[in-house]
């Protein structure tokens, strides 16, 4: 599903050069639930951004569904993001003026296509039920708790039936119980919908839900004992 070969990425912070990724190689299979762990500044977010077509590597190759994304333009990358990738952000990033239903519906507009109103309603209702927010359909994000917001973000990420869902520290802003329930939910959806999940976290306890695990430090993978 995802193949990354010898990817490097560096940033400039003022005059200093920061090597976020130093020749990363990884292959993520369809239906996998991969957890990327590592301390702050290890390159987790950079890796997820590159996989998510939000950022481009300085060198190396990134293949998504057997298609290289390195030479693609902004609009083509936007199209891949809209059709193939779902995003879950650490700080939820819901559109504040839209209610729960509309936030979940938004990616369907980005995707285009000819999904009828009825099909949309069915899809969104099913997802809302799955994430347990049936009673909050018309609530705005500022009327929801952190856990509820992240559930909306998960439903939003899944509404287009993407092949890959990327979650950058989805539990960082949540308490441990809510964090556990969010990762459990992701695991359930991974199992039921066969969606590939890649998420980053600081919290080792969450790795129990994943099918595979890798550790990043200073832009390179560290060997791990194996999947939990």
């Amino acid at each position, binding site marked *: 599903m995802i193949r990354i070969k010898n990817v490097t990425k560096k940033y400039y912070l003022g005059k200093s050069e920061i090597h976020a990724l130093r020749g990363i190689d990884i292959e993520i299979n369809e239906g996998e639930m991969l957890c990327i762990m590592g301390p702050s500044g290890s390159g987790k977010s950079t890796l997820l*951004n590159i996989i*998510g077509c*939000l*950022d481009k590597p300085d060198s190396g190759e990134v293949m998504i569904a057997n298609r290289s994304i390195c030479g693609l333009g*902004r*609009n083509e990358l*936007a*199209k891949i*993001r*809209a*059709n193939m*990738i779902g*995003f879950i*952000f*650490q*700080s939820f*990033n*819901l*559109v*504040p*003026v*839209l209610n729960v239903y*509309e936030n979940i*519906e*938004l*990616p369907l*507009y*980005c*995707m*285009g296509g000819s999904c009828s109103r009825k099909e949309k309603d069915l899809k969104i209702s099913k997802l809302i039920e799955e994430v347990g927010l049936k009673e909050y359909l018309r609530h705005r994000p500022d009327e929801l708790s952190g856990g509820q917001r992240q559930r909306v973000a998960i439903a*939003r990420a899944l509404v287009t039936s993407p092949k890959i869902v990327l979650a950058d520290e989805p539990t960082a802003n949540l308490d441990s119980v809510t964090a556990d329930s969010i990762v459990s939910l992701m695991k359930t959806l991974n199992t039921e919908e066969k969606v590939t999940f890649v998420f980053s976290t600081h919290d080792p306890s969450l790795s129990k839900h994943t099918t595979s695990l890798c550790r990043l430090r200073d832009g390179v993978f560290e060997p791990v004992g194996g999947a939990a």
Partner: protein
Amino acid sequence: MSGKITFVIAQRNIRKHPGKNFLVGIMVFLSTMIFLFTASVVHNSRVCWRDFFSGTTTGYLNVGVVGGNGKDMTSPEFRFPERVIPDELTGYLDKNNIAYSKRIRLGGIKYNFEAQKFDGDDNTFDIIGCDFEKEAANLTNLRITAGEYDPDSYQGAVVWKKIMKRYNLRIGDEISFFINDSEGSPMPYSFLITGVCENISGNNLEVESDSISNPVIFVKYSFLADKLGLENGSYTEAAIWDRSEKVTADVRSIAKKHSLEFFFADEAYVLITSITGFIGFLGGFVALMIMLIFVVTTTNLNTMGFIDRQKEIATMLAIGSRPSWIISILMCEMILFCVTALILSAGLYSAFALLAPQGISFGELGIIFSDRNFRFTTKPADYIMPAASVIGAMTISLLYPSLLTCKMNPVEIFKEGNL
């Protein structure tokens, strides 16, 4: 992208950022009001003078055989006219029953036979030969203040009041002029003053100035026709009172075809043309400045609003929205509240027009409108200009936020958000 979601996001964002949008709305409101008011001032200054001279001397439209600056009635033509108004124009006016008057206009230099010299420096006048009785029906702002028009007097003349005052003339006096004949030799001719005339209302600047804005003497058509040797009712000037745009266009076209001089009433006097021209220029300048201020202020407010919403925009881009859709949301927001503000300001202005149909007096400043009341003009064209300007300025003000949207990298925005 669906128009519905674009509209929903736009209208909710307007409500979410009331401060910024209120300020832009105020800018639209003020700009529109200033645009409309300026348009009214420019329009009033021209129309008031046009009305004044139309009913006092020249007719609404005036077509003459003299070319160049001969239309300036403070600088008359002293040569014998070499041609007359062509039959095509007469035929058009007669066929369409258009209210007009056949005139012979001639310049004259005031001559004092007793002193054997020309009188004073500013001694040139327009002498209009016409059927004064018929003409009086159209010269609705002209009145005879002393004496009368004597139709039986071959050499009788009705003289403008200020001319009488300047030369200390009385009714019954003779007034003499010189004109160059066809060979260029000076030829004297005299009239007997039977009446004195002046305008009924309005101000033709004579009070404020030494110059005479209406240096006119009305005499009999037959006298001047005989003097100039014009036959078969030929005439050298047509004063037309019809105000329809079609007649104006047709007459202008015939005048152009025959190289005749065509002008509106207010264009007959250099001083008035300068005033209305300057007000027009000033109006244009004010409108341009307002538009520039609007563009700069709105760009600033839009950019601030954009920065305020960067994360939301970055999220939409991250989940696959195209920059063009984000720009269409920004555009939709601007259109929504700009149109609302435009409608409000145009409505308020129209309300002024409805509540004050008689117009408002500008006191001493009213001189720019010939001392007539200022009226709020409500022609569709007056509304189109501010609407087009505001929408144009609004679009320009969106260019910078649109550029920022196209260049935005969501990753950078999310990083800043996490700092």
